[in-house]
């Protein structure tokens, strides 16, 4: 039996995480994700789980490192500038191969920026700001329901691959209210006894040590090769996009998150008002990037438009990853302005003939 509730995105994510069986949540206030930690502050203790309001985002991600290293199913959440502060800890979690979930509710930047929604943290999420050759799984929901579903998926992927997984949504999804189906059962557990530092080494027979330090370059190179092999496996298995218009072949709009939601409507308008059958391709994973599926989806098309609430960050990757004869256009804005259906329709019509627009990429 499913549980349906009318909730704000942030609240829905918090409740879902608890229901999926998160053991511990460590957070710090930052707009626009405050309702997430506020909800966690009561649903977690009420269900005998751990909630700590940390002294900083830096401390919160290190609590995650500790609790995940001790075998817990752990989550933190933050927004843009706060995620920037967590990067050191995310690199440590990736290096020590700790499963954990990071919910990133992006606002606008750079710097303190603003508190309105943007997708300007694409690079921050996909490429990270921590040191070293590491990767974070990045899921990109476009609705409150998808955000709820992605939290569950992030837990499963994090545990399957022993890797941090991020759910990246913008403040619009976090702040909107929607009817959502919440999980009814906790997700099944994976065995962590072979590696988690739980303080039972005598009964276990070996010491479990959580560490990312390898002073011997040969050992560190081998560790990096091991990580890369894992990342190749993730890229092979988990890259995902949704083609919202499988029967449209005149062109495409490529987007994720809130931009994808708006692009679905724009594609509809292009068909109804301009008789152009354009498909909306929604990227559901940003890392791994669904390169192969995207190449196939736009194969033979004269034009595809990237729509994003950032200044060409996604456009740059689409250019790099598609490597096709299809002309790639770009429409986007940032700073808290929400991209509109008009922006996308007009951008498509202007650029479909090959007219180049100015961009910094």
């Amino acid at each position: 039996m499913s549980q349906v509730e009318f909730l704000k995105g942030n609240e829905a994510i918090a409740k879902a995480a608890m229901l999926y069986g998160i053991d511990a949540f460590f957070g710090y206030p930052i707009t626009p994700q405050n309702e997430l930690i506020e909800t966690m502050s009561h649903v977690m203790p009420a269900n005998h789980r751990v909630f700590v309001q940390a002294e900083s985002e830096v401390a919160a991600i290190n609590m995650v490192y500790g609790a995940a290293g001790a075998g817990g199913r752990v989550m933190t959440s933050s927004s843009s500038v706060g995620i920037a502060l967590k990067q050191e800890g995310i690199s440590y979690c990736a290096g020590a191969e700790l499963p954990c979930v990071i919910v990133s509710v992006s606002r606008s930047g750079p710097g303190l920026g603003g508190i309105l929604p943007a997708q300007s943290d694409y690079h921050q999420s996909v490429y990270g700001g921590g040191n070293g050759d590491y990767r974070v799984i990045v899921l990109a929901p476009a609705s409150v329901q998808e955000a709820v579903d992605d939290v569950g998926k992030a837990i499963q992927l994090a545990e399957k691959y022993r890797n941090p997984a991020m759910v990246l949504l913008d403040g619009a999804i976090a702040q909107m209210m929607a009817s959502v189906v919440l999980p009814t059962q906790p997700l099944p557990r994976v065995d962590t006894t072979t590696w988690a530092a739980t303080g039972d080494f005598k009964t276990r027979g070996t010491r479990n040590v959580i560490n990312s330090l390898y002073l011997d370059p040969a050992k560190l190179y081998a560790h990096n090769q091991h990580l890369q092999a894992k990342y190749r496996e993730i890229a092979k298995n988990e890259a995902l996009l949704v083609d919202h218009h499988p029967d449209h072949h005149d062109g495409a709009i490529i987007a994720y998150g809130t931009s994808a939601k708006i692009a679905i409507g724009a594609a509809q308008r292009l068909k109804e008002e301009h008789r152009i059958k354009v498909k909306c391709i929604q990227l559901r994973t940003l890392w791994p990037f669904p390169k192969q599926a995207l190449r196939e989806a736009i194969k033979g098309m004269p034009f595809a438009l990237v729509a994003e609430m950032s200044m060409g960050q996604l456009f740059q990757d689409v250019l790099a990853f598609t490597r096709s004869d299809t002309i790639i256009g770009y429409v986007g804005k940032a700073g808290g302005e929400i991209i509109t259906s008009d922006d996308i329709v007009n951008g498509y019509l202007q650029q479909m003939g090959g007219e180049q627009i100015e961009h910094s990429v």
Partner: protein
Amino acid sequence: MSIVFKKTTGLTDKPFSYCPGCTHGIIHRLVAEVLEELNILDRTITIASVGCSVFAYDYFNTDALQAPHGRAPAVATGVKRMHPEKIVFTYQGDGDLASIGAAEIIHAANRNENITVIFVNNAIYGMTGGQMAPTTLPNQVTTTTPLGREIITGAPIKMSEMIATMDHIAYVERCMAADGPSIMKTKRAIRKAFECQINQEGFSMVEVLSSCNIGWKMSPVDSLSYIKNTMTQTFPLGVFKERKHETNH
């Protein structure tokens, strides 16, 4: 033949990476002996920090996590909240605890996390080659205070005194590893700190004044005298906080 002395089972067989003359090895042994004597090795989780003691996870015969620089108390918080029945301790130097990790230690103490902190204060950044630490003494020469520490760089931070202002925490003592009696006293303090955790009394910290003869550019013997005669002038020994036998959790 009977065995009259043997290495504690609280330490692994891994040789220490510490410089000859350094007192980290002694403090490691004291902690390990206490863990063995309290029979808690099999339920202890060590949190190593960044600095000379970064490899503590290789030396203590327990499960362990290596924490980012300064973050050991936050990592310990995560571990302890997951496993409240386990014993969790951090082993941190003064650069790690009093400089980059000042926020994490203050707030872990303020939350009265039921963890134990072993704070090794040698008034210098040893591992990186002897730079000034927040604990460096006035006029002390380091590689970043070549003319001696001046007040414009700050005064030595007294972490034990600062943390002891928190009324609700369990135990704070400053000791030194300078000679036989002071080492035995340090061991008693470490034991008491772990007993506080076992009894769920809350946050406990033992600061140990320690030597860095290489960084200080002194002989090991002179270094021990320096702890005793000079460091204790700035960092007086004593119990700063003892909230007796009240369970706080």
